[in-house]
């Protein structure tokens, strides 16, 4: 029985074309892009190429892209870099209550450094309260950070509306978007949307792990976090990860090829899974269903069945998903998003996330649904009482 990988929001399988170019840059074109000789120039050409690809996709300038070690570094660089650059202008930083720890933990760090950080509330569906955001904004705000797509429930933030509010009420504030779950699923043009800083991660769209980028609008000023040899215009020192950057470029290019058809495919998978789950008893869907939410994430609670138990039972059948929340009997807390949307404990402890990529098929969704229908009665029979 073949594997069914439905944990693509955790990571994806790299495209074969990515492997090829990573191999090539490690075996043949292994030079240091800063070297003056031909080996260096050859290595640098891969970085140029990826810059071109990304600038075309984002409709951005090549110099607006900084390569990083991944989403977490991009988020750190954007938020800390903006806070340090803006600390004379103000002291407030806003973020949504359902951010990934790669944002919320950075905020907690900055809070200890003397900044004021405040969370914008979200509702049960993961929809952010624009009115609250509007009320929170004032000229003392130096940065607002929101996700584009929530990593656990696939809720989508109205980035354009947020940007408009921010630039109107806090004209000097920078707007950072964590687009780690959105890049490759939406056509994103930061300049049109009013985004100043935007994070993405290579391995979420079939690129290599340890790669990512931060878009920095050319007149947005942030301070670098990593100092050294002055690579990437001094914004991120350190010899560039040429194989990773090359692989990221190829992955991005391939992801945005036949893009609309791929997105339709993802939504077809999503709707098929949602419809199948809705036919089962005692299943609660989280986030935004159908086209309103992200195309690749479905999050459901199977009341009375612990997340991890269902996860391992599906694993046993070769189906890989993610637990919305870990163990219930140990004092482990509900996940950040489940807490933010105020999901009751019996739902958060039973939440499972299914996330797709273009490589999944409808047949896999059907097999997953029948596996779940088969497992639920057994798993529900045995529970703590």
């Amino acid at each position, binding site marked *: 029985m073949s594997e069914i990988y439905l944990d693509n929001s955790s990571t994806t399988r790299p495209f074969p074309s990515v492997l090829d170019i990573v191999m090539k840059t490690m075996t043949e074109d292994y030079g240091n892009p800063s070297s003056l000789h031909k080996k260096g120039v050859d290595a640098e050409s891969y970085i140029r190429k990826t810059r071109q690809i990304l600038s075309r996709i984002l409709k951005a300038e090549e110099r607006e892209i900084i390569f990083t070690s991944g989403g977490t570094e991009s988020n750190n660089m954007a938020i800390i870099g903006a806070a340090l650059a803006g600390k004379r202008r103000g002291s407030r930083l806003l973020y949504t209550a359902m951010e990934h720890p790669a944002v919320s933990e950075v905020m907690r760090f900055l809070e200890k450094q003397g900044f004021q950080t405040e969370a914008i509330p979200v509702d049960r569906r993961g929809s952010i309260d624009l009115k609250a955001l509007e009320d929170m904004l004032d000229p003392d705000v130096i940065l607002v950070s929101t996700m584009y797509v929530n990593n656990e429930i696939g809720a989508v933030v109205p980035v354009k509306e947020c940007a408009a509010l921010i630039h109107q009420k806090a004209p000097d504030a920078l707007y950072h978007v964590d687009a780690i779950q959105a890049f490759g699923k939406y056509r994103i043009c930061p300049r049109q949307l009013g985004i100043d800083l935007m994070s993405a991660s290579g391995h979420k769209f079939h690129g290599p792990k340890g790669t990512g980028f931060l878009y920095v609008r050319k007149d947005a000023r942030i301070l670098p976090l990593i100092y050294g040899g002055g690579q990437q215009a001094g914004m991120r020192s350190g010899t560039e990860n040429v194989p990773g950057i090359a692989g990221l470029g190829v992955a991005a290019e391939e992801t945005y090829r036949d893009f609309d058809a791929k997105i339709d495919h993802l939504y077809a998978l999503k709707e098929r899974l949602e419809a199948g789950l809705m036919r089962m008893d005692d299943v609660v869907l989280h986030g935004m269903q159908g086209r309103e939410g992200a195309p690749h994430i479905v999050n459901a609670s199977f009341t009375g069945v612990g997340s*991890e*138990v*269902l*996860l*391992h*039972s599906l*694993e*046993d059948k070769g189906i890989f998903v993610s637990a919305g929340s*870990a*163990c219930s*009997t*140990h*004092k*482990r807390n509900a996940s950040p998003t489940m807490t933010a949307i105020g999901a009751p404990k019996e739902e958060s402890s039973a939440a499972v996330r299914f996330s797709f990529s273009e490589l999944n098929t409808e047949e896999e969704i059907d097999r997953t649904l029948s596996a779940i229908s088969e497992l639920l009665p057994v798993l529900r029979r*045995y*529970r*703590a*009482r």
Partner: protein
Amino acid sequence: MFHTYLVKYGEIGIKGNNRHVFEDALAKQVRLKLAHISGEFEIRKERGRIYVECSGSWDEAETVDALQHVFGIVGICPVHTYELSNIEDMRRDIVSYVAEEHPDSDASFKVKARRVNKEFPLQSMEIDAELGEAILEAFPAMHVDVHHPDILFDLEIRDRIYVYSKVIPGPGGMPVGSNGSAMLCLSGGIDSPVAGWMIAKRGVKIDAVYFHAPPYTSDRAKQKVVDLAKAVAKYTGPIRLHVVNFTDIQLAIYDTCPHEELTIIMRRYMMRIAEHFAEKDGDLGIVTGESIGQVASQTMHSLITTNAAVTMPVYRPLIGFDKSEIVDIAKQIDTYETSILPYEDCCTIFVAKHPVTKPVLQVIERSEAKLKDVIDGLMETALRTTETFTVRP
């Protein structure tokens, strides 16, 4: 510079005629332990002492750390050795020894020589006096105190002269393997690795059994147990670990027996399985991490009930310990950080809100009797599908 350690052992010394058995066991454990670190080591047993001669690319910290993981060792003394010649050379050597090991000291001291080699012309007391005088002349800030010295210079006159004055504490106890072996019931918690460590400290070799309950417990929980066994094995040497798939037995109990008795009945079957593998491995007892009253299944009543499932002796080295005392040991032996990783273990998944705290054996046995149609087959399957492998430090 020194390249010899004198290994001091305590209780072994008083074991009468069996003494050589313990010494051999200790020398073997020292040898096994040092085989895995860099350097070459020669282990010599000599008149109630064990010497470790180090050569090659050995490292002081690494060697001491390895010896500190060998039960039976109470002290590790770095020994300087000098050529055996005349008393003038000895005076010079002791001064250079003090300069190296206790520079700028103003401590009180005593010299205590033992003349093992009777061909040496001076008697022990005369050597003490000569060398004490030499130290006083070279280090005027130091002074003699024969009753409560800060520093005791131990000298042994053999084919060479051995000098030491520092004792690094060892873990104590008795060498593993000198007292048979036992089957440890190892969970992912804090207590059972500590129990295993304590019983091993008394010279007992450890085998272990772990109850795995997929899909209710994950492979990570199993990996955690392997990691704990690895940490304990640093002291005990390789541990044979039996991983038993316990899910079906657990579900059968769930289906058939009163829910508040589930944990007790489950533990009785775990004990039976542990006993099975203990007999198979030639073990002389079962070891658990229980301590009285810690949870419902560890009250005196509960212990009677679980104990009654087996005939082999059950050792509970933590029986009188408070949780905080157990935690202290777990931290000391480096199992604590692994133990607190939050993975589900099979004792907790179906736990009742109000489990029995005073189970009555006859009542429990009546509940168990309801399993009679299925349990033999399930036990047989669990034993047959058990995965056994050796965990090395």
